[in-house]
Each structure stands twice: as structure tokens, then as C-alpha cells.
């Protein structure tokens, strides 16, 4: 560690002069380390999937080059040969390329963490570098962010280790990925990230208080940011990944830095662009929106007709309504390309077709009367007549036969054949790979999308295609989106990502209920105190019974509780009465018969009578106590007959005076129910008895 520190210091001294001259480096991770594009990515790594007829990695490289990167390290794992071949053929590996691309392949990478640890081990980066994934499409000019980052590092002595690039886009924006929805708390002035959290599935966002203790008096909480997955990292980032071998993803890293920041002093900052475009194609939902943004020219100057990959024959013309046509496209009579359509070279389209918001690859054949809306047709696809395709992806070499209808969010993977005369329900995924063939190697937890599974090919039992699923002449297996043994994680891994419809009804309902809770809490905190006090009294009495504590001590304890909870004497008595009368229920549950109840209660009353006597002294106390008794028996109306016995006992134990009982009986019946209560025969008898006794005693007195 110490040697590293020394090295770093030396590097800094040198870098101060060299900083400007040193080439800007980038680390491009051409692997997603997840299986979101399964089963498509079984045949082709994600970075090579075509978006607007160009492989996604080309967009990323174009973005890096245009932003001034001169040296890029491309890390590949899954199907690294394919990526390598692609890159070697591309313009990036020509001798004239301003951006030197190094391809580093290894089957051992399991995560972004592994890649960065390898970067550190090989000491590939000498200076601040840009970290991106191979599926990022962007036209953001990060030079300003880079400048800010360098400035911060100069001023703050390398405290800032990373600058994350975000794009401003309001919630609900089409290109926002619901899974990547983040909430960021930052310092308004320094743009330092204080809190970073994914919000998916959260209803409340919680910010720990310690993030507000940094001396600044203005903070910003932003939910209008789209994570572009572009980060400017200092060389320390790679070192930190090495030091913390448990960091797997960038999220781990960010969380780690924000939490441990106090110890290490490292900080993360953010850069927000308002007008650039940047998005990561992390699922098909994003694929759909990024593709359509591309066709609608939001990523200008990276547009379909620009042919930035500089490949022969890739060029196309751009006409109004954003219709692009490659070379050799033929269009049948009466066919309409409404708007936002991109058609690759040598594709022929039949008569009377309706095509809108779609991308069609090279060498496709499309029959007559075809309707395409938000369809993404890759290369060499054969679509017969009378086909309807809505918001679906059809991969290379697929054949869609006569009169097939693809409903929303269908995926036809490589070389699948469908139909004829079939309608695929929403969200159907068809692949030539059998789902079970993949499950066999599913044991590996860290299995990346991009794991070699070919070895099991020969083992695969040749299963028959189900004509009900893929049509009488179809070829392919249906992939069920959710397998029963996997939980919500699998849900998040379905191809199309989560659908953007938060249930507003339930959301606000819970708000309302939670609000009412809040309200009661804020307005009458004393209720809580009373409840707490009641529990404490119950506990005290219980202990009193178990440990046989003298009543005087119980009184002492209750008194101290009274002060602790700030309870008035009247409340003490009411609560005490209530607790005692409810005690049998506490012991035996609420299913007691009246007889059992009185049987349990009366000895208790006798035992605790000194406690009662201590609190019930004045005439008003007697009345309060009686009203508490009444209240309880109004609630427990099945046990109303027991009330007489209770009152009788309390009278006998001299807890209550007869005058008080009589007064209570005669006064203040406000509600029907308490009037009803007083009509109880036993009670009336008891009162009568009391009255008579009183008469007698008064007579005696005379």
C-alpha cells in the first residue's frame, strides 16, 4: 500500500506537466455481465447487436473518439472472438484511426470489478480515464466535465475520484430506464454527490442526516437525471476496486465511496448535461427508445445517414419525415413509409405496406400488405405477405410466414421461423435454443450472458417444435418470461424491462393512510404517551403478581411512571381501572365467559385494592373511576352482567363509596348505550339495594 502511495505521488508531480499532453484514455467494457438480452445474446454479444443497423459498440467508440479519447481499452469476455473480429474489420483499427483501440479478452471477467482490477494489475491507465459500457449511445461532449473533474482534482488534492455524467430528463421521459431510476442528493455548489440510490420499488426516499452535515446550506435532490453510464474516473478508481475485492459493479463502488467517504476522504461528483444525448441500452425497452431517438436524430451528429462507421454500402439517404433508405431498396406499389423509418441496403418491400417508426436491416424481403409499427427487423429477415408486427424485435435470419401477427413486445431470436397463420401473444420470446438447454448451466451464480454454453450443444435432445406455439411450419421454442423457481430478480431480467405504469391508485392510498398516521402523531403526541403509560402499568402489575410485590411499592412505581409520561392523576386512575379490569383478558384471551371473567377478576381486585385506594380519594375520583368502569363495559358488552359483581366487590372492598355509585347511576347518561347499560337488571337491583341500605343507615342515624 505504501509503495503505491509513493508511486502515486510521483505520478502526480509528473502529471502536472504532462497532463495536457497525455492522451486521454478510455475503458470500454464490451460485456454487460448480465443476461438481460437472453436469448438473443446467446448468438451474438450485446455490444454487436445492431441498433439503427450499426453495432452498438460502434456508437460507443464513435462517442469516445469524438470526445477526444486517443486510446481505448476494450474488454471482452463473452464471445470475445466475435467482438475482436468486428473491431479488427472496423475503421477503429485502421492505421489512420485517431483512437487506438486495444482489445483485451479474458474469460475470467465476471463483473465490472474484475475488469477494473485487471486494469489496475496491468497498470493500463496513467491518468483520468473514461469508463463506459459497450452499449452506450451518446453524443455528449464530456470535455467540459473532464475539465471540471481535472480542476477539482487539482484544487482538492485528488479527493474527487469520479465524475458521473448524467443527462437531464424528467421522470416519465421515454428514454428513462425505470430500472435505472436514480435519486441523487448533491451539494448545490460543489456538485458533490452525497447520496445515490436506485428508486425502483421504493415509495419513500430516505436520506440519512449525516449527508447534510457538510457545512453547505444548500442541497439538491434530483430525480430528473438519467444515468448515462459514462463516468470519468481517476486512476484511483481502479486501485479502489483492487483494494475492495467485493466491489462488483459501479453501484457497489459508488455506495462504498459515499458510505466510507468519511474515512478515506474520497468524493464523487456529477456532471449534468442539458442538451446532450446519452443512454445505455440496458434492456429492450431502452433498445426501442434509443432506436427511435436515433432515427429521430436526437443523437445528432450521429445519425443513420452519416455512415460514421465508414463502411462501404452502409450509406443511406435521408428524406423528410425521417425516412432513410439504403442503396438498392425497392418499394412496392402503394407502400407507405409514414415516418421515422430506416431501411437498410438491398431490402425489398412488397406492395401496399404500411411502415412507421421502424428499422429494417439489410437484405430483408418483405411481402405485400405488411404492417410494421415500431418493428425492429434486423438483417436477412424474410417476412411474407399480410404480416403485422407491433413493437417487436426480429433478429437476423428469421422467417415470418404468411399472415402472422406479432403483438407488442415479441422477440424472434436468430433464425426462428414462425407461422403461417398465427398470432403471437404479447411478450412472446421465440428462440432456436431450447430453454432447458440453458438451464443446465444455470447453476453458476455469476453466469454472465456471455458464458460459453456451446459445449452442451451435442447433448441437447432434439426436441420437436410445438406447432401450436410457432405455427405449422415454424421452428423455435417459446421462452417463458418467468421461471417459477426464481423470484423478483428474474422479473427484472425479462427482456423488455419493467413496464412503466406505477399504480397511482394504490400509491396515493397508502399515502393517505400514512398521512392520517402522521397527522394523529403530530397533533396529539400525548395519546402515545397514554398508551405507553398503559402498557407500563400493565407490566408493573404483572410483575407485581409474579414477584409478589407489596402494593405500596406498586404505587411508588406507578407514581414514577406518572411523572415519566406526564400523565394527570385522573388519567392514572382511569388507566389503572382499565388495566385491572382487562387483566383477565390479558391472561386468558378474550374468549372468556362472564363467569370465568369474574372468577379471575375478583381476587385480583382484592389483591390490588390498596393501590386503588391510594388513587381514589376525593368524590370526583370515585366518579372518574366509575366512568372508566362504565367505558370498559360498554366496549366489552358481552360481559356487562359482570359489571354488577365488579361494582359490588369494589363497594365491599371500600374502593368505591355508595354515594358515588348512586350519583354516578343517576347522573349524566348521554348516550343511548350507557342508558341501555343502566337498564341492566342486575345493576338496577344493586342500586336498589344500595339505596335501601342507605335509607337504613340514614334511618339508623336518625
Amino acid at each position: 500500500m505504501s509503495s503505491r502511495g509513493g508511486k502515486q505521488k510521483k505520478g502526480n508531480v509528473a502529471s502536472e506537466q504532462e497532463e495536457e499532453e497525455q492522451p486521454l484514455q478510455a475503458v470500454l467494457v464490451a460485456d454487460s455481465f448480465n443476461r438481460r438480452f437472453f436469448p438473443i445474446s446467446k448468438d451474438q454479444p450485446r455490444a454487436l447487436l445492431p441498433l439503427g443497423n450499426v453495432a452498438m459498440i460502434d456508437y460507443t467508440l464513435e462517442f469516445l473518439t469524438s470526445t477526444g479519447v486517443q486510446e481505448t481499452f476494450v474488454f471482452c469476455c463473452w464471445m470475445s472472438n466475435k467482438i475482436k473480429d468486428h473491431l479488427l474489420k472496423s475503421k477503429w483499427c485502421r492505421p489512420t484511426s485517431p483512437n487506438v483501440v486495444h482489445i483485451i479478452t479474458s474469460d475470467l471477467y465476471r463483473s465490472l470489478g474484475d475488469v477494473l482490477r485487471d486494469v489496475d494489475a496491468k497498470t493500463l491507465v496513467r491518468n483520468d480515464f473514461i469508463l463506459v459500457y459497450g452499449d452506450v449511445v451518446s453524443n455528449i461532449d464530456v470535455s467540459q466535465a473532464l475539465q471540471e473533474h481535472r480542476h477539482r482534482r487539482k484544487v482538492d488534492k485528488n479527493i474527487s475520484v469520479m465524475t458521473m455524467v448524467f443527462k437531464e430528463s424528467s421522470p416519465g421521459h421515454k428514454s428513462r430506464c425505470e430500472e435505472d431510476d436514480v435519486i441523487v442528493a448533491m451539494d448545490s455548489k460543489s456538485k458533490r454527490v452525497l447520496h445515490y440510490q436506485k428508486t425502483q420499488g421504493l415509495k419513500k426516499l430516505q436520506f440519512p442526516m449525516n449527508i447534510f452535515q457538510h457545512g453547505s446550506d444548500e442541497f439538491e435532490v434530483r430525480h430528473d437525471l438519467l444515468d448515462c453510464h459514462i463516468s470519468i474516473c481517476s486512476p484511483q478508481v481502479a486501485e479502489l476496486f483492487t483494494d475492495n475485492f467485493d466491489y462488483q459493479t459501479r453501484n457497489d463502488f459508488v455506495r462504498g465511496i459515499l458510505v466510507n467517504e468519511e474515512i478515506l476522504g474520497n468524493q464523487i461528483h456529477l456532471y449534468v448535461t442539458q442538451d446532450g444525448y446519452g443512454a445505455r441500452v440496458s434492456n429492450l425497452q431502452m433498445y426501442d427508445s434509443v432506436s427511435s431517438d436515433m432515427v429521430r436524430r436526437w443523437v445528432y451528429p450521429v445519425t443513420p445517414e452519416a455512415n460514421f462507421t465508414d463502411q462501404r454500402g452502409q450509406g443511406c439517404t435521408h428524406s423528410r419525415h425521417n425516412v432513410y433508405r439504403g442503396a438498392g431498396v425497392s418499394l412496392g406499389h402503394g407502400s407507405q413509409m409514414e415516418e421515422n423509418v430506416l431501411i437498410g441496403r438491398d431490402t425489398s418491400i412488397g406492395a401496399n405496406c404500411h411502415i412507421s417508426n421502424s428499422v429494417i436491416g439489410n437484405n430483408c424481403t418483405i411481402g405485400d400488405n405488411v404492417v410494421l409499427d415500431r418493428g425492429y427487423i434486423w438483417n436477412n429477415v424474410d417476412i411474407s405477405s399480410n404480416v403485422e408486427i407491433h413493437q417487436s424485435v426480429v433478429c437476423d435470419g428469421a422467417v415470418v410466414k404468411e399472415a402472422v401477427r406479432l403483438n407488442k413486445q415479441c422477440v424472434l431470436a436468430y433464425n426462428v421461423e414462425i407461422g403461417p397463420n398465427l398470432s403471437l401473444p404479447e411478450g412472446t420470446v421465440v428462440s432456436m435454443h431450447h430453454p432447458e438447454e440453458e438451464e443446465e448451466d444455470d447453476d453458476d451464480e455469476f453466469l454472465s450472458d456471455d458464458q460459453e454454453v456451446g459445449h452442451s450443444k451435442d447433448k441437447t435432445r432434439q426436441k420437436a417444435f410445438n406447432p401450436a406455439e410457432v405455427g405449422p411450419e415454424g421452428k423455435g421454442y417459446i421462452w417463458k418470461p418467468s421461471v417459477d423457481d426464481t423470484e423478483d430478480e428474474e422479473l427484472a431480467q425479462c427482456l423488455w424491462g419493467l413496464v412503466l405504469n406505477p399504480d397511482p391508485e394504490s400509491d396515493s392510498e397508502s399515502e393517505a393512510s400514512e398521512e392520517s398516521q402522521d397527522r394523529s402523531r403530530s397533533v396529539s403526541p400525548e395519546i402515545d404517551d397514554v398508551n405507553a403509560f398503559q402498557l407500563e402499568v400493565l407490566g408493573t402489575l404483572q410483575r407485581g403478581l409474579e414477584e409478589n410485590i407489596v402494593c405500596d411499592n406498586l404505587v411508588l412505581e406507578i407514581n414514577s411512571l406518572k411523572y415519566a409520561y406526564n400523565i394527570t392523576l385522573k388519567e392514572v386512575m382511569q388507566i389503572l381501572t382499565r388495566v385491572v379490569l382487562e387483566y383477565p383478558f390479558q391472561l386468558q384471551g378474550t374468549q372468556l365467559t362472564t363467569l370465568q371473567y369474574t372468577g379471575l377478576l375478583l381476587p385480583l381486585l382484592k389483591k390490588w385494592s390498596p393501590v386503588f385506594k391510594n388513587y381514589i380519594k376525593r368524590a370526583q375520583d370515585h366518579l372518574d373511576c366509575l366512568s372508566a368502569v362504565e367505558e370498559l363495559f360498554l366496549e366489552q358488552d358481552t360481559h356487562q352482567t359482570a359489571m354488577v359483581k365488579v361494582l359490588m366487590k369494589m363497594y365491599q372492598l371500600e374502593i368505591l363509596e355508595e354515594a358515588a355509585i348512586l350519583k354516578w347511576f343517576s347522573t349524566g347518561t348521554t348516550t343511548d348505550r350507557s342508558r341501555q347499560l343502566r337498564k341492566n337488571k342486575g345493576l338496577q337491583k344493586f342500586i336498589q339495594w344500595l339505596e335501601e341500605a342507605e335509607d337504613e343507615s340514614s334511618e339508623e342515624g336518625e
Partner: protein
Amino acid sequence: MELQAVLMAAGGGSRMMDLTYNTPKPLLPVGNKPLIWYPLNLLERVGFEEVIVITTKEVQKMISTDPKMKLDVKMKLDVVCIQEDADMGTADALRHIQQKVKTDILVVSCDLITDAALHEVVDLFRAHNATLSMLMSKAHEFTETVPGQKGKKKTGEQRDFVGVDGTGKRLLFMANEADLDEGLVIRKSIMRKHPRMHIKTGLVDAHLYCLKKSVVDFLAVNKSISSIRGELVPYLVHKQFSKSTNSPKVNDETHQNLNKNDGNVNLEIQISSRDEELLRLTQERSCWNDHRGDMSEAYHGGRLRCYVHIMDEGICYRVNTIAAYIEANRLAPKLFDEPAVHPSAVISERCLIGADSIIGASCQISDKTSIKRSTIGASTTVREKVKVTNSIIMHGVTIEEGCNIQGSVICSNAVIGRGADIKYCLVGSALRIEPDAERTNEVIVGTDQLMEI
């Protein structure tokens, strides 16, 4: 009449007991004018002709009898007295005058000294048909030394967290640090509506509120709320995003039920400002919107809206601590242009009076005195060779020869003995400082004034 002004002047000044022991807070002299004059003047300047003043009997009596406390305002003052010992909060006071409230109200606290443009607050109220709009200001650092205060005050006080939207006007969140044990919690639905929230901590609430009449009616029914700042405002801010006030359907239903007055829910709904028919029509027909990013209707259909105007610059003080009191005295002369020396004061020619000092009516200033950056109250006598710097001398004080007073507050009718040297002290009213005393950084009050516990 668009707005009725209500001035809250019944506060006891519990945070500066040493000063308010003899003089009620509204009548403390600031720049030789009673504190209450400043908010009254503020209201008068913007054209109010009538103001309801809620105060105590004591204050009312003093205003009407004591000539020194005369308020030279032309507005009609409708003074309402409340019992001092009733421990009424500001919301209780509003409830008390509910009968007088005929329209929307502007509530001002008597301890506010500001040169804020009031129309900014009212315009927010008008423009957004808001339920509440209020004034806040960046907190000021008090630079002057405070008598009797050792060292710098701890900054670890409980801060207020105020959340406003991207425009800095809409009030979204309000909480005190003390209530945030579990961290700051914001509902995601709020963030979805207002994706950018600024959370500010260094703000002072000026206690100036525009409130809809319906809020007063709500208070009249909902008796549990007793303070505007402490309970009502947070409640309103919170209610902005609750379902019951947002969905118009529920609202209509409950309007019918309103007369029955059954249950708590209806009472809560009463607050939501009911847009008039015409306004609603305009909102329907116009393409105006208060937010960007999604296509939902303006204000997301919310009826209850709270706004805040945050002053970036200018004077805004709440005179509720001694430090603020001293600071306010220093700044007060800038707020009005009256001759610094009252014409009735008798001032010897051979004395030095700084331009930033104020001399009150019928003062007597003798030879060879020097008065700098100070306020001298009415009927005060300053004898020869006295030096007063950076101090506040209230009414009727006598300062004997050769005294040196620096950075101190001398309350009414005190007598400072000959040759005393007083630095950074607070001298209670009607006290007598013995000659040649040397006092530094003390609070000198009568024994009867010591705090009862």
C-alpha cells in the same frame, strides 16, 4: 379589499427576557421607534389602510397613553386584545379574530424588520391562487458582540430544512432537524412531480404569511392547531400532496357533505382553495403549465399550493434575540429618512455625534461627549465627557459625567454613575450603576428579575 392585514403583537419575547422584562416586545425601541412601528410602516408603505393588531392589554394601554410609544401611522388600527396568560399561539389568535376576517389575509409578526418588496409575496399568492405564500430570507450572521454571551454561540442549533422546487418558489418540504431522526424522508410521488428539489438550510422565516380565508375557517373548526409556524404551515405544506385534496372528485362530493360537517376528512378538505368557476375554465382552455416533463395538468391537479419568496439580499431581521435586537438597531437608521437628531433634543455644540447615531426627542447632550454608532432614546440625559460607542441607550436614561459605554444596551430609566466604565453589558431598566464601576460582558438586572425556576 383584496387582503386584510393582521399584525401579531402579543408575543412575550421569551428569547430575550432581559430586555422584555419591563417593556413588552412590541414596544422595544429600535432606532427610537417601537418595534411594532416597523411592520406597521411596512404595511402602510404598500397601501394598507386598515390593520388588525392582535396584542395584549398592556401593550394597548401603553400605546394609547405613553407619548414615547406613539405610533405615527395613518392607518386605522383595529386593536384586538387577547389575554396574556391564556398562552395563545398565533393560530389561536387567528381563530380568535375569525369573525373579523372577511377575505384572504396577510399575517405579519411584530418583530419583523425588513425592506422586502411585499408584492413579491403577494404576487406569488395571486399568480398561483395559492393557499399560502410566505417570505423567507437568507440568514444573517450577527457580527456584534452580544452582552453577557461568552464566546461564539454554538452553531449546532437545530436547522430548518426547507425544500423548494426548481424555480425556487414552490414550497415542497419543511421540517426541523429535530424531527428528522430517521433521516430526511421524501415521498417518491413528490419527486416524480417535482423532480428537482432544492433543500436549503440557512434560511430565516420572516413570519409573514399570505393565507386564504378558507385557512382561517379551517382553523376555526380544527382547534388542535395552535401555532402558525409550528403546526399550520408544515401541515399545509404536507397536505399539498395528499390524495384527498388532489382528486377533484372527492372534493366535489365532500362539498355536499360539508354542511353536515361529519368527520375529520371534510374539515381537512375545506382548506384546499376552491378555484372559481371562471378560473377553472381558464385553466382548462389554456395551454399554460407550471411544470415541464410530463403532460399532466397544471399543478398536477393539486388544489392546495404553498409558495415561498426567498430574499437574496436586503434587510430582513426578526428581532427575537438580543443579538438580533442589537443588529436591528444598527441597521434601523437606514430604513427611514428622518433627521438623525430629533429637533427637540438639546445638544451642546462642543460634542461629537457620529452620522450613524440617532438622538431621540428632548435629549440633553452636554459638552465634550462623543457618541458614535449609537442610539440614544428620548428624554435621556448625557452629561459631560461621556463616551458612547456602539451602544443602545433607551428612554429616560441618565449618564453621569465621564462614563465610557461601549457595545452595551442600557434599558429605560437606568442611571449610570459618574465615571463608570461599561463594556458589552446589558443594564436592566431603572437600575443604578454605582460610580466608577467597571463592568465587562455582564447582564446587570435587578434581583426581582432573575429567572424564576
